[in-house]
């Protein structure tokens, strides 16, 4: 496990570095959202998900769905670094006619589902989880949602269904960085008490530091053995994690770093 943690930390560093380069080259937005979920992606793709990058359509694979599709850049980087496609393809991000769109795109190998409008990932994942139950597949379906995204009612419709049908192969991870489009989640539309809400909806709920690889690994392993309930993991995160001037700043939901800012960011990530 120690080796796993070291390797996934290394992967996270590479994802952050790659994501920053991609966003700067494409003059794109949402870098802070991408950095917020990077550690979760690193742990999932390094240690948890049973997916062979050479057989990305194997029916029995675990499936990961990114519902907060605007944070796509770190998932593209993760897939590239994990061998789903030639890493050089990441240079296509943001180009005209590129498959690497600025919201996550299923045209990229390894991406299960395109999103961009919020509140679609969890209901879609619920359908996949139900399909696995019908087919007696032993895989798990993991969906990553933003916290602001929980304003969308469709998520709660899906959780009602998932709990009613005991979809214990469905794991929702909330990237709870407490920032959304204009201000904090708390000031926008209060979602607390979130733990209690998910409990009341019939889910098994865990809370975890969304940047601590060991804790993430442990909680995901625990989630794997829960029976009879859908699982929700509330991952406490920092938006813009790893780049001090981006952390907890709404601006970095939108802005692209300039060259000087990029250098600072890359140095901080390298020396973290």
């Amino acid at each position, binding site marked *: 496990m120690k080796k796993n943690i070291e390797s996934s930390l290394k992967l996270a560093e590479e994802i952050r570095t790659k994501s920053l380069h991609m966003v700067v080259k494409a003059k794109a937005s949402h870098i802070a959202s991408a950095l917020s979920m990077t550690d979760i992606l690193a742990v999932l793709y390094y240690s948890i998900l049973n997916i062979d990058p050479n057989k990305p359509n194997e029916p029995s694979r675990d499936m990961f769905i990114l519902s907060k599709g605007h944070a796509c850049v770190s998932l593209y980087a993760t897939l590239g670094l994990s061998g789903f496609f030639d890493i050089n393809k990441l240079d296509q991000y943001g180009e005209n006619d590129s498959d690497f769109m600025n919201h996550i795109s299923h045209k990229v190998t390894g991406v299960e589902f*395109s999103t961009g409008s919020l509140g679609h990932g969890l*209901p*879609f994942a619920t*359908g996949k989880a139900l399909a696995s139950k019908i087919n007696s597949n032993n895989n798990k379906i993991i969906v990553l949602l933003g916290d602001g995204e929980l304003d969308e009612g*469709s998520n709660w419709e899906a959780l009602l*269904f998932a709990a009613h049908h005991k979809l214990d192969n469905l794991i929702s991870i909330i990237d709870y960085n407490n920032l959304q489009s204009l201000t904090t989640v708390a000031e926008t539309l209060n979602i607390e008490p979130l733990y209690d809400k998910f409990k009341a909806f019939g889910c098994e709920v865990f809370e975890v530091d969304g940047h601590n690889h060991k804790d993430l690994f442990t909680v995901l392993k625990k989630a794997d053995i829960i029976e009879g309930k859908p699982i929700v993991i509330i991952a406490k995160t920092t938006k813009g994690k790893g780049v001090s001037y981006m952390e907890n700043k709404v601006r970095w939901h939108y802005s692209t770093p300039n060259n000087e800012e990029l250098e600072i960011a890359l140095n901080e990530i390298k020396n973290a």
Partner: protein
Amino acid sequence: MRNTFIKHLTEQASINKNIVLIVGDLGYSVVENFQKRFPNRFYNAGISEQNMASMAAGLASEGFHVFIYSIANFPTFRCAEQIRNDIGYHNLPVTIVTVGGGLSYGNLGYSHHAIQDLGLMRLFPEITISAPGDPIETKMCLTHLIDNPGPSYLRLKKSGETTYHKKHTIIEPGIWKEIRKSNNKKIFLTTGGGLHLAHKIIENNSRFTDFGIYTCPLWGAKFKNLQQSQINDFQEIITVEDHLLDAGFGSWLRESITIPESHLKISHRALDLNVIGSVGTEEYLLKKGGF
């Protein structure tokens, strides 16, 4: 139509193990037999059309052909974005089935009047629209949709519809089917409930005695390119539909063709805007709407 649909779907489900039916808490006295026969391929999503549509896309992405069933505007307008992004864009085999097409639920009010649904579904380029006009056409449409799984819309009326087709034949999307022969190269071209309305128009107006009737139960954005060649055989075409003219079937045909300068006269019979907000029997509202 409703009974024909569920009977045929149930028969097909015993052969095709990929068929799944999800209802949006509707279908009392309709779906029970399917549920009993295929308990692990029947789900009630509850009253949650957005989840129903996205979840259907998720199931379909794993190889199932999913039918989602509800009334009129609920599985269409309520979850339009789920249809656009999750079902359409991903090109997944989900058939959205509505009951109560047109003004079938006339007394139940505007919420239940499906008179703009074709307009919505026409906007999604991947979707095959099927609007059968009688029970035989319902079966023919369903056969086509099952044999050609993809994003599709099946617009049913309710029950008690007259049968106009004489036998079960193959129908192809975008291709018109003759129901009544024309003696003068003049026809009514119908979709859905328009088939019944065209018969009524002929019955009640001697000017149209020699008119033929053609139906086009399978259509949509993908099939516009098949229309131009079919208009050439006729001197007059009047489209008929139980839907608003705006973004409806007649508008679709009009957008699909370039009308030649000579000979062809084309016009449209559709519901007048004054039905909006009115209630009454279907017959009453159709009259109020211009039929």
